[in-house]
């Protein structure tokens, strides 16, 4: 049962990954990314980490990808599809890198034990995660939250500095976004 479910989510995640790279429309790429993230959430569920699974959906699928879609819609519909530069790597180089990555994965997979021990009761519940975060990992957790806060404040400060002086309507786009997919094509 679990193996079958894992197979399905793995295939979906890989398909999504290919979709992110291969899609011609930025919005389609974002949707493919959404597929990857949701498949991963199901994988977390299979690993008995239900809290992490819920967070994966709320934070990544529900907030971050929405932000991506939002920004793509605001920018790309106005300017048309952005220049699709080449990948920056010759094909042969990309092939060699992919091969090396595959070898590294194989080496890792060879070292993995066949069956993991069953999780302890209560593993992956919110109580368990909370105890770990505010007990054993308190310092890294607080440090990470301070780092994120610094990042946010920095982004706001940079955004303020980049605005041209004398702009009467700060923070508003100069022209409304002009339409949907056809105009982006």
């Amino acid at each position: 049962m679990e193996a079958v479910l894992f197979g399905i989510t793995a295939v979906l995640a890989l398909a999504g990954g290919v979709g992110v790279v291969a899609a011609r429309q930025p919005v389609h790429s974002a949707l493919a990314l959404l597929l990857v993230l949701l498949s991963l959430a199901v994988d977390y569920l299979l690993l008995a980490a239900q809290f992490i699974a819920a967070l994966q959906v709320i934070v990544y699928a529900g907030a971050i990808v929405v932000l991506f879609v939002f920004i793509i819609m605001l920018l790309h519909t106005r300017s048309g599809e952005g220049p699709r530069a080449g990948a920056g790597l010759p094909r042969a180089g990309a092939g060699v890198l992919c091969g090396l990555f595959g070898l590294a994965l194989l080496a890792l997979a060879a070292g993995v034990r066949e069956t993991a021990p069953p999780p302890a009761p209560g593993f992956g519940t919110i109580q368990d995660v909370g105890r770990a975060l505010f007990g054993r990992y308190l310092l890294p957790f607080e440090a990470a939250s301070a780092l994120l806060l610094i990042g946010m404040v920095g982004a706001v400060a940079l955004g303020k500095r980049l605005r041209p002086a004398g702009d009467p309507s700060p923070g508003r786009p100069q022209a409304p976004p002009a339409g949907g997919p056809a105009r982006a094509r």
Partner: protein
Amino acid sequence: MAATLLIDAIKSAVILGGVLTAFAYVTLLERRLLARFQLRVGPNRVGPLGLLQPLADGIKLIFKEHFVPAGADRLVYLVAPLITVVAALFVYAVIPIGPPVRLFGREVTLYVADVNIGVLLVLAASSIGVYGIILGGWASDNKYALLGGLRSSAQVISYELALGLAVLGVVLAAGSLSLVDIVRAQSHLWFIVTQPAAFVLFLIAAFAETNRAPFDLPEAEQELIAGYQTEYGGFTFAMFYLGEYVGVITMGALITTLFLGGWQGPLLPPVLWFLIKVFAVVCVFIWVRATLPRLRYDQLMALGWRVLVPAGLLNLAVTALVIVARG
């Protein structure tokens, strides 16, 4: 194992059937109540008291021509309403509508799943529901639809924060994220009494989350025609409509569960209590729509970020302090 699966399947089917029927009649209820608020009569011609009106509306919508705008992104255009419907219906898996009952010699719980993270699941479903709106607006290739979709997603994301903060107050008071435990924690006193600030916050955020008046900017007729639904017709339109009204019923069920003691009440059977409370909250939603004018967009954002979020944080801090002080 097989029996459990069968029971879960039957429960899901019954709940889905119930919710869909409720959806149909909430549309009628809204039209009749709005008419009364505006000193009109409302639709009363189809069947006795107009009770067959939802059926007539449904048949009409199904037989309409299926139409996709020329510039639309076909796949996304068709997937968007589906996302809305699935996200709206998914929530009902974790909402308890009554205590366990004995049916056919077997203990049956009146919820599909009591998960450790019930509240988070509800929030996750609502955050996925945003995609239906934003993608529908984008894929239609219409500037009004796009603007409506953008407005709506900004609004829903902003108010989700206030909604989550209000829920956190209740979660702290109940000591659990499971909706079943939250109902159980209210057996003596409903959370609307001990968490009044959270209740008000949740109610306001719920209006915004469901894109209802006074926060119905995504579909402000005068500015945006019909917002993200502009290019939808027939069955796909019905699906958006369904998502919207099921969202209202969901918020009713959530407010009942989180603040009004869930299925608990004297004399009447528990399931009936649950339905009465949900009905009352839905009526409040309609009443508010008939009473309040629409806000401006900047007012909406200012209210969300400058009033509701700080108030939610304050409520959370006070609740935490009280709980720690009590030990």
